[in-house]
């Protein structure tokens, strides 16, 4: 950590001298490639709406945390998101309704429930920071936690990626390769839920899904193979993340949303880039 702060403070910029920006920059560098990798498979699994719903359900997670009396509702949020991920996976398997209907219903319910509990006595404003998120408030201890999450995620991404990928292409095809389809889907849904939930306090419920989806969508427009898809996506995510962070410092805007706008620029460029690459 000390090495990092001294390294960043040698940069000849005003923002690089502040501790909160040094922390935020490190967090962005860790979390944006993670989001990008995750986003690639979220889109391949057609789960963009699912990850959005998980983000929104955090409201209920926070509410449960408040009811139980936790100072930091993070664990309540994570547990609730996990339950929801498993629940939706099961519903998708056994329900005749299409999966976006199932997810839509679950999302409306959890958002409403969360707002009702948190707004009791008119105190919802206290929780509005979760809606927008505050990346600049991240502490070194939280960065350590992010590192641990990243290591766990990468381990899964190296060992189980091919399975998750095959299941996303065709479940019967995956089954013929002896891949346990439902376990794999449940596992992927759980990873997505956990990462979304853990990141919400810094990024915000309203924009977190954009951060996951946009780099992957942009990359998709130009990539010709899975390798290109994931790496382009990570590159776009990191550049947009760093640019967004610095821009938000100078414009005094919310960091998460500013990063999303930069990702959007990449998305528009990718539409043109795809045409040039003949894709």
């Amino acid at each position, binding site marked *: 950590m000390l090495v990092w702060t001294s390294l960043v403070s040698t940069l000849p910029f005003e923002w690089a001298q502040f501790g909160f920006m040094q922390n935020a920059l490190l967090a962005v560098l860790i979390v944006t490639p993670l989001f990008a*990798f995750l986003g690639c498979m979220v889109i*391949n699994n*057609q789960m963009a709406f699912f990850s959005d719903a998980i983000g929104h359900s955090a409201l209920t997670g926070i509410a449960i945390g408040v009811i139980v009396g936790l100072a930091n509702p993070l664990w309540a949020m994570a547990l609730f998101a996990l339950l929801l991920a498993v629940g939706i996976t099961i519903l998708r398997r056994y329900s*005749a309704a299409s999966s976006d209907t199932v997810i839509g219903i679950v999302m409306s319910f959890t958002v409403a429930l969360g707002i009702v509990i948190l707004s009791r006595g008119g105190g919802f404003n206290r929780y509005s920071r979760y809606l927008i998120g505050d990346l600049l408030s991240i502490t070194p201890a939280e960065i350590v936690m992010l590192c641990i999450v990243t290591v766990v995620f990468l381990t899964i*991404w*190296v*060992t189980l*990626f*091919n399975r998750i*990928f*095959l299941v996303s*292409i*065709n*479940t*019967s*095809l995956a*089954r*013929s*390769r002896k891949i346990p*389809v439902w376990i794999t889907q449940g596992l992927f849904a759980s990873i997505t839920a956990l990462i979304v939930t853990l990141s919400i306090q810094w990024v915000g419920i309203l924009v977190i899904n954009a951060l996951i989806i946009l780099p992957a969508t942009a*990359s*998709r*427009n130009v*990539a*010709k*193979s*899975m*390798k*290109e*898809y*994931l*790496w382009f996506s990570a590159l776009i995510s990191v550049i947009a993340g760093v640019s967004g962070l610095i821009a938000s410092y100078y414009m005094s805007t919310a960091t998460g949303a500013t990063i999303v706008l930069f990702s959007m620029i990449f998305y528009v460029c990718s539409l043109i880039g795809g045409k040039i690459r003949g*894709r």
Partner: protein
Amino acid sequence: MKDNNQNANPGLVCGACCTRLENVGVSFGKNEVLKGINLHIHCGQLAAIIGPNGAGKTTLFRAILGEIPYTGTIHNELSDVKSMRKLTMGYVPQRLDFDASSPVSVLDLFSASLSSRPVWLGHSSIVKNQAIHALESVDAKHLIHARLGTLSGGQLQRVLLALALTPIPDLLLLDEPVSGVDPSGIELFYRMVSELRRTYHLAVLLISHDCAIAGRYADRMLFLNQAVLCDGKPADVLRNDIVVKTFGSIAVTDLPRTNEPSPVCDITGKEV
């Protein structure tokens, strides 16, 4: 049709049984999709499954693959002289429902299926050689770096067949493998499957909508509608009353009637 006579040569079908289904049934909620299925699928035999829409053909495959819960027993072991081993299955889906803009290359598909090295970290040369070899056998080597979304229906089916054949399976399941393929492509596909079955002594189970062409290449034909209603040589099954009632009269004039007793058929769906 000399070809057919060769196909029908019983000497090609060994006694070894690949997959056995005993009284298999599948229900989705209250909806009973399959019931009382008893089937023995033999090595070296190309069996075609025909039946109306919603007859449970794809469901039968999904049960055999172990993807959905079923009642009854499905034996998927190959009983060698020495030991029992789990059956290797190859599967070609009816259609691959994927986003055509998806950045998945043919090599990605092979790599993910054959190796545990994550495809986003590149492909091993062993896997690449395996893929080239497999694609060569279906005349699709040039497609190895193509994106799935850019392939034509026939090309995609050939790629999926090559994938299903790597490694060589004991049982090959083809779910309407030629839907969306042009007529010359269909003929090519059937000839290829027929050849492979002979070369590798595979058990092939094929769902088909095109009874006439399936009849020319298959050794055995099953008429499925919730249960196996008819089971026998294609020439006989296609002339059977139940089948004619469903599909209308199919031009089977080029299929000689066999001298065997008429196929096992029963409208009630019970095994006779």
